[in-house]
């Protein structure tokens, strides 16, 4: 099984594509950093017993007043930048992966429902989708979170999912409409297979490749969106670590020349997104769906 996998075209093209490997390696490093943040981080930035206000606003270790216990400096509360970044990565990746999984499942469900059965159900789903789409994911997420009274990681995930399932539904619906006409689906119907069986055994597997690409592209978009929401103050609450929040706090100090509070989390975020984009670019070329655009 594994041997067969290693000989496949997909693996073959992967090991020959240097930027895909770079992206994947970076991504794996980020995931490991996030998973083992409590072990790797010099301190727990959200444990009040270890945070000293006296340590606040320290520059990175290599600068004059920096100290070795805070390699990348500290923020206004005395939290180490490096530690907060590691914990912030957890939030980013957790929100990113949860949203991608949940919204793709939602999108696949509604897309298949609409595409397979057609009629008024399809019309209703697709008109809803059009409306959500016209508003754009970002705007809808901001507005949704704006009207929620309390916010935590899961309300953020919920809001982005509500705004984000549409892309998946549209893509899968297109594939279902295409696949539905094939002779093997007609054959399955003729042989008396249940709708459920046809959908999951015959239609879904053939409609999946573009969904994988979309998920990869979407992961980068969602991570940026989470950072944006947290930056605006409608994302994760102050009690949770988040790259967007760090940048938002650091923004107030750039005029005082304290660049490290913005630059390090910013660079982490950019690297993370670039890594995902490099990987998804390769995936897209490989699976070659009709996805011309990110939405």
């Amino acid at each position: 099984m594994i041997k067969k996998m290693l000989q496949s075209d997909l693996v073959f093209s992967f090991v020959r594509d240097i930027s895909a490997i770079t992206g994947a390696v970076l991504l794996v490093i980020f995931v490991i950093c996030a998973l083992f943040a409590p072990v790797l981080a010099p301190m727990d930035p959200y444990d009040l017993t270890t945070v000293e206000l006296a340590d606040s606003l320290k520059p990175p270790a290599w600068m004059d007043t920096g100290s070795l216990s805070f390699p990348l400096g500290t923020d206004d509360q005395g939290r180490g930048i490096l530690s907060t970044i590691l914990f912030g990565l957890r939030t980013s990746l957790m929100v990113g992966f949860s949203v991608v999984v949940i919204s793709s499942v939602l999108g696949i469900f509604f897309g298949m429902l609409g595409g397979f059965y057609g009629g008024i159900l399809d019309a209703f789903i697709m008109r809803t989708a059009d409306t959500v789409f016209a508003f754009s994911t970002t705007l809808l997420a901001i507005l949704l979170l704006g009207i929620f009274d309390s916010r935590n990681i899961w309300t953020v995930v919920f809001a982005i999912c509500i705004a984000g399932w549409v892309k998946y539904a549209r893509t899968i619906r297109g594939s279902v409409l295409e696949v539905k006409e094939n002779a093997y689906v007609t054959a399955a119907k003729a042989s008396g297979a249940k709708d459920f069986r046809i959908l999951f055994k015959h239609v879904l597997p053939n409609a999946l490749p573009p969904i994988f690409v979309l998920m990869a592209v979407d992961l980068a978009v969602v991570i940026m969106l989470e950072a944006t929401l947290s930056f605006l103050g409608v994302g994760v609450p102050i009690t949770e670590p988040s790259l967007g929040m760090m940048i938002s706090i650091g923004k107030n100090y750039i005029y005082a020349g304290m660049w490290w509070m913005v630059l390090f989390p910013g660079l982490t975020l950019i690297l993370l997104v670039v890594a995902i984009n490099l990987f998804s670019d390769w995936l897209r070329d490989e699976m070659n769906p009709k996805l011309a655009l990110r939405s």
Partner: protein
Amino acid sequence: MVLLAVSFICFLIFRFTGDPVLMLAGKYATQQEREQVRVAYGLDRPFHLQYVSFLGNALQGNFGKSYISQVDALDTILERFPATFELALTAIFISMAAGVLLGVVVSIRPQSPLSRLIMAGSLGGISIPTFLMGILWVMLFAVYLEWLPPFGRGDTIQIGPWRTGFLTLEGLKHLIMPALTLSGYQLAVLLRLTRAGMREVLSEEYIKTAWSKGLSPFTVIVKHALRNVLIPVVTIAGLSFGELIAFSIVTESIFQWPGMGNLLLVSIFENDHPVIVTYIMLAACIILVINILVDLLYAWLNPKIQYG
């Protein structure tokens, strides 16, 4: 239809998130005072009657008063409209002009160092979130180089109901960074779209014919090729208008731009629901109008499509 649905959802938000009575009467009101407020604002009537009156008022442009400032919500937002409009217009102009121009350059000479630089830049454009891009601009141009003012709108001139920043030097200087920030993402997207379209079109037969006729490069590229590429570019630019509004919220928050987006964020923090709801309705209207315009433009650019 869409507007009706949006209005219904807005009404639900209006009615069921947070208790409006608590908002209006204040935390320390007695039970009797609360009852008075409930009757005064018609909140004691049945649900469907409330919705009908909400809809009727909304059609007349009456969305109620801001809980915080007690000023008409629509007026509050419309007062901020010129600032946002000028910012958005400039950003669209930059992203369309630069995106298409650079896209053409890259597609003509795909292997030149300049093209590689542009493509690397465009990868950055889609990989750096708007808010970070804005802060990086501020760090570079306002803090490090001290060339441009970091926030605000500068001097403005009032012309009738419209307050414009286009006519003063200070106003223009204040516009540069926010406009660049807002246009960044769309610029990168349009650039990539133009490049992809041009690469496809340039290898077609009729372009080869045009070259072999000895037409000037300008005529071939602009008149023959670009024209066909522009259709999807214009469509995408129009359809991503919702995204533009969203990013204008982000941009305005970074640069303290006195526009609608900033107002929305303040209203969110203050739980000022009438203003939020008005903003949502207004955004829905704008997006709907833009979508219709794009459809019409599409038909005009491509005579094959007709609306009967």
